[in-house]
């Protein structure tokens, strides 16, 4: 019989993968009716914990009890009442919305509910969450990431869980959506079920959690309750080595940027049908933020800027020694020193079958040795060592499979790859998705250093906190077009929110609405 006050008990749990120790004597207890955050650097074992609680992985040793039982596989976990939203958005691209939504509700021999019910219910839920009236029989393949994320969340909510685990579920959600999610979470908490949240978004975390357990290298290093949960305390526990001070990036200086000449410019850009065309310029030495609610065209714009997609109308041009070089393809972009880093590493980032080193090197071969030229590891290796130090990549042997790294470190390898190409412009598409604070800071510092050296950065994020003290200007997108560009001191929560929601005037009411929503 487990202590009535504890729904989830994890005592001295160990889990290793090959020689990687993921969990090393972890202990966590979670009480009913609380929102419990699991915080830690990349690779500290958060997801592993989540997987163990949901029966996906089994602990090598130690005690795991959820409502008095030990979930050994997802089927059992489901019976116990555990619903998990995993870090990776798990949907079947070729199946319809309704199939994805109700995956796992049927048993081998019996249907959970009639297809008609299922359709109705799925349409209602998605309408409530995404505000879109979606045909339940439409394959999820063509849906944007955020909607897919919602499908996964809805799926978890549908099996009305006693324990809900969210592993970075807000990473793919924009602000408004996150607020909605928080509303749902509160409902559940008040209904007495307990919620485990894994997130790197400190702001969100402070807003919603009652209690936070901090992990380091697979061990519990502390527990914070209520008011104790602050960025400072969290950081102190997560990485005691560095003080908050030294990782604060130096503040920007507008003067230098004004001086910098144009690196990349676009005129009359239209990213989709019927979207109002707009111009933009990126100065060398500048960090240009890009944001917007989901599906407002900002990520499309980013791909255009990187040369991955040709603009729907208008032209993008890189400035080279005064002359303008039009850019219509990735190849041209890279010829003119523009590199792209995706935040969606699994899909368009890493090569899971290659070593850490080759994941880093393969982008450099062309410039160093050409298509058929002899590859010599010497020079590339030097670069690799340099970048590894610089970004503090926590990697084992360079010959290890990249998949043996945690998400955050994989991301660092990709950024290292971009920096090593010595580009003029780096275009980053939400690179900090699922990346811990420490790593984020490292990333900001590196990008600052890069711009200080005359480089220019386009940085997309849906987490507006990222831009504070970091971006020089922020382009806010709306309805497929540039809605407003904020710069300098304008870059603050209210103004950004206002722009994202399409208000130009003051928006106290809206913000307070969001606040109380969350």
């Amino acid at each position: 019989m487990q202590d009535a006050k504890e729904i989830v008990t994890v005592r001295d749990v160990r889990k290793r993968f090959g020689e990687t120790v993921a969990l090393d004597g972890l202990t966590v207890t979670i009480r009913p009716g609380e929102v419990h955050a699991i915080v830690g650097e990349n690779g500290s074992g958060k997801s592993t914990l989540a997987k163990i609680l949901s029966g996906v992985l089994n602990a090598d040793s130690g005690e795991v009890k959820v409502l008095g039982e030990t979930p050994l596989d997802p089927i059992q976990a489901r019976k116990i009442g555990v619903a998990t939203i995993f870090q990776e958005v798990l949907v079947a691209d070729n199946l319809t919305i309704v199939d994805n939504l109700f995956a796992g509700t049927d048993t081998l021999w019996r249907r959970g509910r009639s297809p008609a019910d299922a359709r109705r219910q799925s349409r209602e839920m998605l309408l409530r969450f995404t505000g879109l009236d979606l045909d339940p029989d439409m394959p999820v393949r063509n849906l944007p990431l955020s909607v897919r994320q919602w499908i996964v969340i809805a799926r978890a909510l549908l099996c009305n869980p006693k324990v809900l685990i969210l592993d970075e579920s807000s990473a793919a959600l924009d602000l408004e959506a996150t607020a909605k999610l928080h509303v749902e979470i509160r409902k559940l908490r008040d209904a007495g079920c307990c919620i485990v949240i894994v997130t790197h978004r400190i702001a969100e975390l402070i807003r919603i959690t009652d209690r936070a357990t901090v992990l380091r290298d697979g061990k519990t290093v502390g527990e914070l309750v209520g008011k104790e949960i602050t960025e400072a305390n969290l950081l102190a526990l997560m990485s005691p080595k560095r003080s908050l001070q030294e990782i604060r990036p130096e503040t920007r200086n507008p003067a230098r940027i004004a001086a910098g000449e144009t690196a990349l410019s676009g005129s009359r850009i239209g990213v989709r049908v019927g979207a109002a065309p707009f111009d933009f310029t990126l100065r060398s030495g500048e960090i240009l933020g890009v944001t917007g609610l989901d599906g407002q065209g900002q990520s499309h714009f980013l791909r255009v800027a990187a040369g991955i997609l040709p603009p729907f109308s208008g032209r993008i041009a890189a400035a080279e020694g005064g002359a303008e070089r039009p850019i219509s393809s990735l190849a041209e972009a890279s010829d003119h020193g523009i590199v792209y880093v995706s935040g969606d590493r699994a899909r368009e980032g890493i090569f899971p079958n290659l070593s850490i080193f080759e994941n880093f090197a393969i982008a450099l071969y062309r410039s160093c040795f050409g298509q058929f030229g002899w590859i010599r590891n010497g020079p590339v290796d030097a670069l690799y060592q340099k970048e590894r130090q610089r970004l503090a990549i926590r990697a084992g042997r360079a010959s290890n499979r990249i998949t043996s790294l945690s998400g955050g470190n994989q991301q660092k390898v990709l950024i290292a790859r971009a920096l090593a190409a010595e580009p003029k412009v780096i275009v980053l598409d939400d690179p900090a998705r699922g990346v811990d604070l420490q790593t984020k800071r490292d990333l900001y510092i590196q990008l600052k250093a890069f711009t200080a050296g005359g480089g220019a950065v386009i940085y997309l994020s849906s987490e507006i906190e990222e831009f504070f003290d970091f971006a020089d200007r922020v382009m806010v997108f709306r309805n497929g077009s540039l809605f407003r560009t904020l710069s300098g001191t304008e870059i603050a929560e209210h103004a950004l929110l206002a722009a994202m929601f399409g208000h130009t005037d003051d928006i106290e009411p809206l913000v307070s609405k969001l606040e109380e929503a969350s």
Partner: protein
Amino acid sequence: MTARIQSATVERHRHLMVPLVLIVVLLIVAALRGPSLFTRDGIGGAIIVVTPLILASLALTPIALVGRGGVDLSVGPLLGFINCTLVKWLVENGWTNPVAVVAYVVAAGIVYHCIIAAIILYARVSPIIVTLSGFLVLVGVNLVVLDRPSGSAPEWMDGWGYGTSIFSPVAIILLVMIALWFLFTRSSFFQQIRLTGADERMAFANGVNSVAARFGAHIVAGIYTAIAALTYTALIASGDPTQGTTYTLAAITALVLGGTSLGGGTGGGLGSILGAISMYLISYALSTFDFGSIAGFVTSLSTGLILMISLLINSVMNFRSGRAYD
């Protein structure tokens, strides 16, 4: 909204377009060149010849649907194995009771496929490799069981391969198996197979019993292969160690012609049935022409071209639903 649903439904059945069109075209050719196809005997003959192929390609379908690029290369040799052992081990020893015979063939199919499923699941080797080795092994074993075409089908099968009536025993078996198939596709069990095939990680993580689903898919495959073997035995009224093997490529082709993608995702039983029928019609339509001494070569050429063209149209039509690019 309704329009949307329309489009979604259409999209889900798009893969049937090509085999349907193909069948219509071939039927027209047949009607013009060899109208005897539409006589009682013509249809009767068509049914007894096409039934083993239809059942074999139905057998491939659940395995393709359950994912991991599942394609059962060993369906042909397994069909041959059941045919040979039925003739050699049962009939020659006088065990010709219909119930016993059916029980044996079904059991044989199920046992074989359970072994295959177990290897795929627990050795974690991809299905195409496992079934390739199954193919090679059975090709050998069949010739050991029966070194030459010989033996005879149980006498209650006499005349099953005679095919002068539309509702011959074979036709009834075919109808029953098709009916069973559509019952099967309505079941929650089939849903579990589809989920597993569409994304095994998603299925597993959400408490779909993907192990049971895979075993189930293979058991169904075993049953359909077994009945295919039964109808094939009826067709040739004897045992043949090598002929079964020719069904592997034929059935896979029928499966793919039917719009089922070996990559998982799209496809279904109806497609396989149509695919198998169009395979027969291709062969029939070609045989209505007289190419003299080069008949064989022309047949091979045209079969190849028809295959490629249908696939091409299929992939062009399903392009939108193909791998999304940026």
